[in-house]
């Protein structure tokens, strides 16, 4: 019997080949289902949060009275503060989507696919995943926006004002899809796809002590600038004061971000030396593997913590002033700023919790073989879960605490006065922070729910 005839190869373009292959790659075995659903769920959360934040901010732009401009300025500030952690969630979702396809890309290269085909397939798949997630996120937004509408400003619920104009929704979906495609393309630049696997072009980042020196200098200059605000006021009026404050904010936050991974590494190294239990030792070692990644995961909360302290102190000072002679709308403004600060801090923690949840779920899936190995050795499942939780919370404490501490240093005399004069305002802010920490802790713990599924089918990972 003669062998089947071999058809001559046809040389199609990379995009055309990718389009032919895409449906095959879209099929999943049962074992891949979770790995596929996770990036979709991540993009869903990102889109819903983005639409909620944009919807909340634009509600204030429907007002046109005397104080509308003040509210709109504050809404833009809150929007900027929330976009930072939202960017972290988006980056986590993009990284997760990229990690899940590594193995299949290597198989494609083994079969002789060109770099162009691999690139086109990657971008197509990322865009399709993001599109499905963004559409689901818009549905989630529709379900949760009424809750946002319950927030009261000027004594009234925002209600239907939080709905984005319908024409914006396709734009948001398109934007998320495009960003995912661009992220996938950027992600491919950081890895080398070979027939034998995918490897990163560079090692995990390390942090240097010189950054600490620069950060300390920035904080000292910032402190000097804040103490000299009256001098700047005499020279350039309110514009100069606002400009100096904005500059100090930005510089100190950049300094915190620069010094953070280094401090995290130092602390993890010390803890690795002194840890008395296995979860503590593992947590420290996990952080030491890549301090920058550990920091990045929760860094979105830095700006919020910093501004949260400013907000809490400002509110405490403002509420101490006699408002009896103020017009009603100005009294509402004072009250609404308080609500805005708390909502922004809470929203920021919610986004960091989402980022942590996505990252930890991806890490758990990536380390499935380790979980199976530990189980075979008889290591209790709680050990790895506790180690993961400790690693996340340790970084969160440092990010949040470090940023808040910088703000306290800059406002030192005022913080003392605020605690003394308006303890309720300070306690309320502290309570929001405590709930936020709980939320992030819960998100870190959620990933452990994946472990029983991994252990039930160990042959998938070993």
């Amino acid at each position, binding site marked *: 019997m003669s062998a089947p005839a071999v058809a001559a190869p046809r040389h199609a373009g990379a995009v055309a080949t990718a389009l032919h292959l895409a449906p095959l790659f879209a099929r999943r075995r049962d074992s891949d289902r979770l790995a596929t659903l996770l990036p979709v769920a991540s993009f869903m959360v990102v889109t819903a949060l983005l639409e909620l934040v944009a919807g909340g901010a634009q509600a204030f732009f429907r007002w046109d009275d005397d104080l509308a401009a003040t509210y709109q300025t504050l809404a833009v500030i809150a929007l900027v503060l929330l976009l930072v952690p939202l960017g972290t969630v988006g980056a986590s979702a993009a990284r997760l989507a990229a990690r899940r396809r590594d193995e299949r890309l290597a198989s494609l290269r083994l079969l002789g696919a060109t770099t162009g085909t691999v690139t086109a397939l990657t971008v197509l798949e990322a865009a399709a995943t993001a599109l499905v997630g963004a559409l689901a996120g818009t549905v989630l937004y529709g379900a949760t926006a009424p809750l946002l509408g319950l927030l009261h400003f000027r004594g009234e619920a925002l209600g239907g004002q939080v709905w984005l104009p319908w024409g914006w929704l396709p734009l948001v979906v398109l934007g998320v899809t495009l960003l995912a495609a661009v992220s996938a393309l950027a992600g491919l630049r950081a890895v080398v796809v070979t027939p034998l696997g995918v490897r990163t072009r560079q090692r995990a980042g390390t942090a240097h002590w010189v950054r600490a020196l620069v950060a300390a200098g920035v904080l000292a200059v910032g402190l000097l600038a804040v103490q000299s605000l009256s001098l700047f006021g005499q020279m350039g009026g309110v514009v100069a004061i606002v400009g100096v404050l904005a500059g100090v904010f930005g510089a100190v936050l950049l300094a915190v971000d620069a010094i953070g991974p280094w401090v995290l590494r130092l602390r993890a190294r010390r803890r690795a030396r002194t840890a008395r239990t*296995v979860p503590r*030792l593992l947590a420290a*070692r996990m952080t030491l*593997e890549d301090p920058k990644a550990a920091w990045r995961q929760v860094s979105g909360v830095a700006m919020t913590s910093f501004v949260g302290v400013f907000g809490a102190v400002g509110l405490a000072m403002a509420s101490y002033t006699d408002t009896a002679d103020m017009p009603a709308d100005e009294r509402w403004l004072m009250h609404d700023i308080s609500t805005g600060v708390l909502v922004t801090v809470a929203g920021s923690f919610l986004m960091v919790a989402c980022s942590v949840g996505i990252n930890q779920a991806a890490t758990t899936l990536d380390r499935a073989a380790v979980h199976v*190995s530990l189980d*075979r*050795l*008889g*290591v209790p499942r709680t050990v790895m879960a506790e180690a993961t939780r400790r690693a996340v919370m340790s970084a969160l404490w440092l990010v949040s605490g470090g940023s808040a501490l910088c703000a306290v240093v800059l406002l030192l005399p005022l913080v003392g006065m605020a605690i003394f004069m308006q303890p309720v305002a300070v306690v309320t802010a502290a309570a929001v922070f405590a709930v936020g920490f709980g939320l992030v802790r819960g998100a870190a713990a959620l990933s452990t729910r994946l472990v029983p599924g991994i252990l039930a089918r160990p042959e998938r990972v070993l």
Partner: protein
Amino acid sequence: MTSLLSARGLTMHYPGSTSPALDSVDLDIVPGTSVAVMGASGSGKTTLLHCLAGILRPTTGSVMLQAGSGPVDVAAMDDAARARLRREELGFVFQQGLLLGELTALENVAVARMLAGVPRAQAEAEAQQWLAHLGLTGLEQRRLGELSGGQAQRVAIARAQVTGARLIFADEPTGALDSATSVEVLDLLLAAVATGRTLVVVTHDADVARRCGRTVVLRDGHVVSDTAAPAATAATGTETAR
């Protein structure tokens, strides 16, 4: 002599599979011996090891182990009890080593003792002794990625023994090593047997089986050969009478 481990009627059905991975396997393992389990891929040898070690619970059958606290039926224990048994009574050396990449060689070994409640300083001192005994002095602070395959297996062997486990299970411990390193690793495992420990090793390698005191050959979930002499030919498909 009383068996350290005694399996009776071990049968294992995986969900969705039409034929059993193990079918009524009986096996006795006496203390201080080395047993090689051989067979072609899919013959059930790794499943047998997992059932004997309490990693898998067989569909039917019993696995009686003379544990430190007395005889226990591993097959009848719940998940938590089997995990504790693996942690406290058994040692493992697998092809991948099952080491934690974040930890140093010393910490990987010490963790086994820390999990048993031993203070870290004491656990590390004991780990240090085992690493030195296995020729890894000076490599204690290296992590998995900084060790060769043979060095990583030595660390795994140290971890398997540091708890005082009397029974060591090894699944293809030399599968990823060159022949010279394979000999060294097997030397270390058999040295443990010389000190009174018991070794059950799953292997494809006839040279490994030849150095063990006894060879059990599986085919399609059945024991087809159980001899004191090596049975390398049987493992590769030649019929061997039991």
